[in-house]
């Protein structure tokens, strides 16, 4: 018969007495993660591979320290690499809708922006000065005067021809007219009527001739004005070139190593020369656009001109788009915490002006890809996937290896905006996510494997060996330092490590998740502070763990209460045939607790089936059904190898309404059937967990600690009798990390944990009756469980045989 486990094996304690430290303040080693050699190698490989598509997907449990770990490795690598170039966007003078991207070696972008600002400032002073010079004004007036003279000559010639014919030229509100005069006054209509017909006719002919001549001559005016403006433009070009060229020449020399910049400077020079008057002398431009002598000084548009000029100067601005001078050194490492579409690829901002949204190249804003270009970009995969269009855009730029800024508005609504020149992209993207996400992408997105060829898979747990435990101490100490917590003494660290083992429900493993451990450290520190402990002690850690469990304890308390009030029927004493306490785990949020469930079995003659009531009413999951079917196989092979298994057994999870899955109760169900078949009562002070195979071997299950504690809490609530305990698979012993109160109850013999290897061991313990070993003749010893089961099944078979014969006889008769 199985013996109970010793108390010490129920919670292997961490012993750090071999380490020379009193508190974590004595531990200086700095460790971020534990036992992630595989992930480390993958990250190293990924950042070392420069070929296309070798981006990384770092997967693993939350809180495993992936970000910090990878960021550290990437940061170290980036520091050894050269700084990427600066990027500037400038105006495209040929096509303003397509701003030009200029590349500079690091630091030159900022310098170029400053130089261009200086150029404009210099020209703002120099050009007005030259345009206000006496020489320029005289030359300009000469051109204007020549035009006026030509214009006046048209009228003077006409007037000269008109005067001898008693005709004069008068100005009307909308033009000119040739009218007859007498004694210097316009002839009135009445006086005109009095003229002899011959005089009228002469006047008419003369006026018509003059009108035709004048109309013909006036048609020259636009051409002359065009000539005037052309000559003025030439004059302006000459003067501007004289002023601007020395500045541009100096800039060209300064940036001769950047051919695209030199081309841009050529365009700047041409544009300034072409538009100098309009840009730098708006008032002058207003004047020159009008025919001389027709200015409207009463309503001079100076404010508007100034505003226009201010806007126009923007074309010479330099949008320092990516400024790597600000970086410390090496390649950039950018962690974009909010990876929306615009935050990734940049955006085109707009300004509202008079009810219209306007934009230009100065309103282009970089995204994380621009900032990380030439380096590394760290992103949370889930956030990228949740942001509209971000994932597709990220893939697109990684495929095309260039960043093209395109607003979503532009994509979906086709609005007219900018189409900036794309910037070549050379970036290593590191995505962080959980395993589910990784496998989902790998399976569902055919492009994923092409772009993220390296997976760095972080472990959930690490072995609880001596070396790892020592590293764990260093990890705890590092977290204490990093979070500026008071030091933890040796005992406190031991409790933290114990808890880490409990987190993974394995006495031989530790959790690799740093986040939850850090949370525990902070909570324990808080308690230590309230207890006025300068050093965090074991009791503070225990209190933190207990507090955490207590805070999440409401559902567990309600469950226990329903059992205590006998709303849920659970026996913890006495014996019952065909009735047994099974154990299940409820997981709610981040907490899980065990709970006993009564399982009952009834048997009768039948055709060899075990009826799973849960499955029949669709409350049983497939794994549970599988376990039940295994029972049929076990019973048939074990007891009725040479005759029909003439049994009909039904199994019920009593008071279970929420569905059952998993096969961890299959051994429990088998015990209930064997009890029912053998009519041997099962001691209700036991609860059982463990799955069973076709050979009656009991197999490991999950949640063993929670299950034991769940039954312990019920028993303790009713008073421990010393006859209560839990049967667990022997293979689960290594997972035991039980609560202290359970361990202590076991130590004092008030409770017991039994490791079970096979069904015979279990049924013997549960019923107090030996299972019995099959003899050479195939029989079991009298009075044993197996004998009683065998006899019962044989009786069922005989009865069935007889029943079948009677039926056949009645049909034949």
């Amino acid at each position: 018969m199985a013996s109970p486990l010793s108390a010490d094996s129920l919670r292997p304690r961490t012993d750090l007495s071999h380490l020379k430290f009193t508190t974590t303040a004595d531990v200086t080693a700095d460790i971020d993660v534990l036992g992630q050699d595989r992930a480390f190698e993958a990250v190293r490989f990924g950042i070392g591979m420069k070929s296309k598509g070798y981006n990384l997907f770092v997967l693993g449990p939350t809180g495993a320290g992936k970000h910090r770990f990878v960021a550290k490795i990437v940061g170290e690598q980036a520091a050894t690499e050269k700084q990427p170039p600066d990027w500037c966007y400038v105006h495209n003078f040929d096509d303003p809708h397509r701003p030009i991207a200029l590349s500079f070696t690091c630091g030159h972008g900022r310098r170029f922006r400053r130089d261009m600002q200086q150029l404009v400032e210099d020209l703002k002073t120099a050009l007005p000065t030259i345009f206000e010079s006496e020489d320029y004004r005289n030359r300009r007036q000469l051109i204007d005067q020549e035009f006026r003279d030509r214009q006046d000559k048209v009228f003077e010639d006409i007037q000269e021809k008109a005067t001898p014919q008693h005709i004069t030229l008068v100005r009307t509100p909308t033009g000119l007219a040739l009218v007859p005069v007498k004694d210097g006054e316009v002839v009135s209509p009445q006086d005109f009527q009095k003229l002899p017909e011959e005089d009228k006719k002469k006047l008419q002919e003369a006026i018509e001739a003059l009108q035709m001549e004048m109309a013909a001559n006036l048609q020259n005016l636009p051409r002359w004005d065009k000539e005037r403006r052309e000559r003025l433009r030439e004059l302006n070009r000459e003067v501007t070139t004289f002023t601007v060229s020395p500045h541009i020449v100096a800039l060209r020399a300064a940036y001769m190593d950047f051919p695209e910049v030199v081309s841009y400077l050529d365009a700047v020079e041409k544009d300034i020369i072409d538009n100098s008057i309009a840009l730098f002398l708006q008032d002058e431009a207003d004047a020159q656009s009008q025919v001389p002598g027709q200015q409207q000084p009463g309503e001079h548009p100076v404010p508007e001109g100034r505003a226009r000029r201010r806007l126009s100067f923007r074309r010479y601005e330099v949008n320092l788009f990516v400024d790597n001078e600000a970086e410390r050194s090496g390649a950039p490492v950018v962690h974009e915490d909010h990876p929306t579409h615009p935050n990734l690829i940049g955006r085109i901002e707009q300004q509202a002006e008079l009810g219209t949204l306007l934009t230009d190249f100065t309103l282009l804003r970089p995204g994380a890809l621009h900032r990380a270009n030439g380096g590394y970009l760290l992103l949370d995969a889930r956030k990228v996937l949740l942001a509209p269009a971000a994932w597709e855009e990220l893939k697109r730029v990684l495929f095309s290896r260039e960043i093209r800024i395109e607003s979503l508005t532009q994509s979906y609504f086709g609005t007219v905006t900018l189409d900036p020149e794309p910037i070549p992209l050379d970036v290593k993207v590191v995505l962080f996510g959980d395993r589910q996400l990784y496998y989902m992408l790998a399976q569902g997105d055919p492009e994923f494997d092409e772009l993220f060829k390296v997976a760095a898979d972080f472990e959930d747990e690490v072995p609880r060996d001596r070396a790892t435990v020592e590293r764990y101490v260093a990890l705890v100490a590092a977290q204490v330092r990093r979070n500026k917590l008071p030091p933890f003494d040796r005992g406190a660290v031991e409790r933290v490590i114990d808890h880490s083992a409990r987190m993974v429900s394995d006495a031989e493993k530790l959790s690799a998740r740093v986040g939850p451990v850090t949370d525990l450290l902070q909570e324990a520190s808080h308690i230590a502070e309230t207890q006025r402990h300068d050093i965090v002690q074991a009791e503070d850690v225990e209190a933190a763990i207990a507090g955490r469990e207590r805070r999440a304890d409401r559902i567990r308390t309600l469950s226990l209460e329903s059992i205590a009030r006998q709303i849920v029927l659970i026996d913890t004493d006495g014996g019952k045939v065909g009735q047994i306490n099974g154990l299940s785990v409820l997981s709610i949020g981040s907490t899980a607790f065990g709970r006993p469930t009564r399982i009952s079995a009834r048997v009768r003659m039948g055709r060899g089936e075990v009826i799973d009531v849960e499955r029949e009413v669709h409350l049983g999951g497939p794994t549970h059904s599988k376990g039940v079917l295994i029972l049929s196989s076990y019973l048939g092979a074990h007891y009725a190898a040479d005759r029909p298994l003439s049994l009909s057994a039904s199994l019920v999870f009593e008071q279970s309404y929420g569905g059952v899955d998993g096969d961890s109760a299959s051994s429990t169900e088998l015990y209930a059937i064997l009890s029912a078949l053998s009519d041997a009562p099962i001691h209700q002070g036991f609860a059982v967990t463990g799955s069973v195979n076709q050979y009656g071997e009991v197999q490991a299950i999950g949640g063993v600690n929670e299950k034991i504690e769940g039954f312990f809490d019920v028993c303790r609530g009713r008073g421990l009798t010393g006859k209560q305990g839990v049967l667990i698979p022997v293979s689960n012993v290594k997972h035991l990390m039980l609560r202290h109160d359970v361990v202590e109850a076991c130590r004092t013999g008030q409770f017991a944990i039994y490791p079970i290897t096979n069904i015979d061991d279990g049924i013997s313990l549960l019923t107090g009756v030996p299972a019995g070993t099959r003899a050479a003749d195939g029989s079991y010893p009298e009075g044993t469980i197996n004998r009683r089961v065998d006899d019962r099944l044989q009786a069922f078979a005989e009865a069935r045989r007889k029943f079948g014969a009677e039926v056949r006889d009645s049909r034949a008769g």
Partner: protein
Amino acid sequence: MPDSGAPITRILVALDHSDDSRTTLAEAAALAARLQAELVGLFIEDVKLLDAAQLPFVRQISLTGQSGPFDRTAMERSFRAQEQAARQLLESIALRHRLSWSFRVARGRASVEILAQAQGVDLVIVGKTAPTVTRQGRIGATALAVADALHGAILFSEPRAAHVLGHGGPVLAVFDGGAAADRALAIAARLAGAGGQTLVVVSPGDAAERQLLRQRAGERLAALGVSARFIGVTDHGPAALEDALLQAGGGLIVIGEHAPMLGGLPLADLLALLHAPMLVVAAD
């Protein structure tokens, strides 16, 4: 018309269809604002043009060389459009300067209508040049006719020196011992005082004459409580006046009718020679 001590409370500005009218109006408004005077806009529909528009076979030629009908209906429509524009301009300027204002339309000969409307007005402002076809700016017959007939103050605005009145340039008073010199000095002092402008007194003659004139002007100005800068010129005539104008840095010239300073030059010639606004004051 005001005597030497009376304030200028009402200004009449004559407007017509010429381009320079807008400049004249803006200048008049600026002056009225400084003097806190009422501004009366008078748009004159030139009856000569209306007569001409009734003549057969006369056509209107635009500055683009296009020929079109020239009839009385179209002419009247053009006038109405211009009146409307002038009224709106006057209104907007008056609003900006918080001026008291009115607008009238008269049809007839410009000089006659201006003189008719000048009753009860302290200052008449007219454009110096006639609405001519050339850009050279012929001195308008209207302006001269008004100057001859008006026994008061008339200001000839100068489109080529726009903003002089509005922008607070100096006021040059020609004090040459003429019959209207005292009155010119008084009006100039009032204009300069109202706008916080520099008053420059220009006196011609030899040293003794200039000294005497300066002394007399000083006494007049002392009585008015106004200080001035004095510029003496040795000669009479427009060249001397232009020289004084240059020394003063431009500005408004205030001169008496038939002033000795003119050296017998007709007013029309003086107006043609000097590119500055000029206020001509009749003798008492």
